């Protein structure tokens, strides 16, 4: 059939299209489409379950709180009450203090462990095995790990018994349990591994020949540690710091089970306020906590440019 002279409506458009879209451009379009596709679930998730709730928390913190209900009438009453209450302000102080101490403790306990695994254990398999060993405590429930400290630290606990048997003390030490001390010990033990992991990875990445080069240039082990290993492991310290900070600042369970209600963290306040249906108040504490964590992470990221280390 001679219908070629009578162009079908689709043909010219198709022709123009194939000419305009080079294979390279078509590939770029495909690549971009795939990138968007990969991005979508994450973006949706963050929108629905992070940004939206975060906005909601901020919004609710300005609602009017009555004894058993909140009403969406905007007021700064909850904020005023929170910021003028010695209890809540001291909770911020306690949270920050516990955070700093636990952070330092995880660093002091964790860094040598990471140094050992990353630098002195040459065998990669053994390195992995040791790192996995650090995670073994996580095979049991969080609560068991925390509560296990009670028979250790209690007045009739293992530590007191041993110290008394050795004759170092005559009366049991009472500050060991149900105190800020026990909270710090518990948290350090739980979160230490999050410090060990990232630091180990950074140290293990240091090329052996770099350390040998420093030795060859005449530097002693101490100098090499200070001038080479420590600076090169700093990104690991920062990542570990971010992990530990985020978890410790929002903590409530360790304090609840090991402090005997003597230590009030922001997390504990949120739990108790939610428990007594004081949503607006809980929201204020939540916003304060979010701001603190944001500032901490921002500060940590300023110390080391993580983009350079990726």
């Amino acid at each position, binding site marked *: 059939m001679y219908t070629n002279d009578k162009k079908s409506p689709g043909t010219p458009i198709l022709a123009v299209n194939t000419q305009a879209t080079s294979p390279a451009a078509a590939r770029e379009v495909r690549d971009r489409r795939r990138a968007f596709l990969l991005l979508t679930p994450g973006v949706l998730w963050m929108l629905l379950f992070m940004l939206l709730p975060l906005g909601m928390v901020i919004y609710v913190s300005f609602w009017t709180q009555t004894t058993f209900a909140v009403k969406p009438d905007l007021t700064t009453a909850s904020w005023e009450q929170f910021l003028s209450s010695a209890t809540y302000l001291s909770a911020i102080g306690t949270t920050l203090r516990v955070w700093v101490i636990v952070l330092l403790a995880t660093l002091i306990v964790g860094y040598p462990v990471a140094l050992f695994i990353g630098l002195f254990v040459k065998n990669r398999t053994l390195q992995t095995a040791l790192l996995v060993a650090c995670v073994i405590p996580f095979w049991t429930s969080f609560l068991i790990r925390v509560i296990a400290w009670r028979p250790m630290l209690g007045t009739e606990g293992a530590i007191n018994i041993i110290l008394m048997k050795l004759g170092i003390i005559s009366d049991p030490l009472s500050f060991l349990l149900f105190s800020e001390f026990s909270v710090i010990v518990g948290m350090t033990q739980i979160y230490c591994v999050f410090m060990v992991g990232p630091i180990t990875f950074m140290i293990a990445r240091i*090329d052996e*020949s*770099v350390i*040998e*080069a*420093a*030795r*060859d*240039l*005449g*530097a*002693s082990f101490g*100098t090499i540690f200070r*001038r*080479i290993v420590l*600076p*090169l492991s700093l990104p690991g310290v920062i990542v570990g710091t971010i992990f530990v900070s985020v978890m410790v600042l929002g903590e409530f369970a360790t304090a609840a089970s090991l402090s005997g209600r003597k230590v009030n963290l922001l997390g504990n306040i949120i739990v108790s306020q939610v428990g007594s249906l004081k949503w607006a108040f809980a929201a204020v504490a939540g916003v304060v906590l979010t701001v603190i964590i944001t500032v901490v992470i921002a500060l940590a990221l300023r110390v080391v440019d993580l983009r350079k280390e990726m």
Partner: protein
Amino acid sequence: MLELKGVTRLYGDVVALDGLDLSVPDDTYLSLLGASGSGKTTLLRLIAGFEEPDRGEVLLNGERLDGKPTHLRDIGFVFQNFALFSHLSVAENVAFGLRYREVGRLENEAAIRERTQHALQLVGLEDFGHRGVGEISGGQRQRVALARTLVTEPRIVLLDEPLGALDANLRARMCDELKSIRERLKVSFLHVTGSETEALTMGDTVAVLAEGKIAQVDDSRSLFTQPKNPASARHLNAWNLLPGVVKGGVLHASVGKLPIGEQVADNTSVQLAVRFDDIGVCAPSDVPAGHDYFEATYVTGEFNGPTALSFFRTPDGELIQVVDHLSDPRLPHLEEGKSYALFFSPDAAVLFKGAA
């Protein structure tokens, strides 16, 4: 002078170095040629102190080095991968030894800066001090590594395949520069390499490392033209080795009978070595007078630019190589699978006693 006496290093059951003796005189460029896995890097690591020998002594100017910690040995080591400190700038890398070494540390910042700048000038990087080591090219990194080592004025400089990570053009240029830098500093360089051309180009003296021992130490030309043993000849990658047994003053090799120039007792195992470029090729009937020859089949050729390599196979499967020079061709047209006479002047052959 650096001396190694009877140095042995074992890794489990594997013998890396086997009672090795070597001395590196002052103010010399000594290149050490060895195949990969021959223990040449191990040798350098023993001198630098990253490892200790199982037996033997390492002496520098009569002073015992083995047993001494690396950072007190005062020996320069240039790594194959350069091993630069990635968190420090070029200048900070170079200044590292001056600033942080345990003995003879410089406290005066101005002095450190001056010597660092001087070292950077020496390697032609005076304007790169502020750069990060990730922001410079491979060749420049090589120079930083060199400057970092040289600035501390080590008693001897060990270079572990220092040109291995560079491309061919750069390698040729660095060869010249390494030599001229060394001549200016008057310090001995011990340069380890697996490339025979690099070893011959660089070294005032070339040592061949084979089977954990030094096979031969000689100047480049003597080593190349008169290897003293099969191991040296093999490492030069320029000699064909024909193993055989002497009977009645004639070598019975796998390629047939060949006359030998010297008196050798009957039933002695020997290897006759003929250099790639000393062999001529012709039809079996046309062998020129006064030449020894054997027959082999032409397999294939390899064109390398100024030279061409031709491969022949002897009846028992031995591969024979012949080099022809593009500007001065000696070989006739060769047909694959055809048999040719490979002839050489009796003077060109070198006889090694002992089994292959």
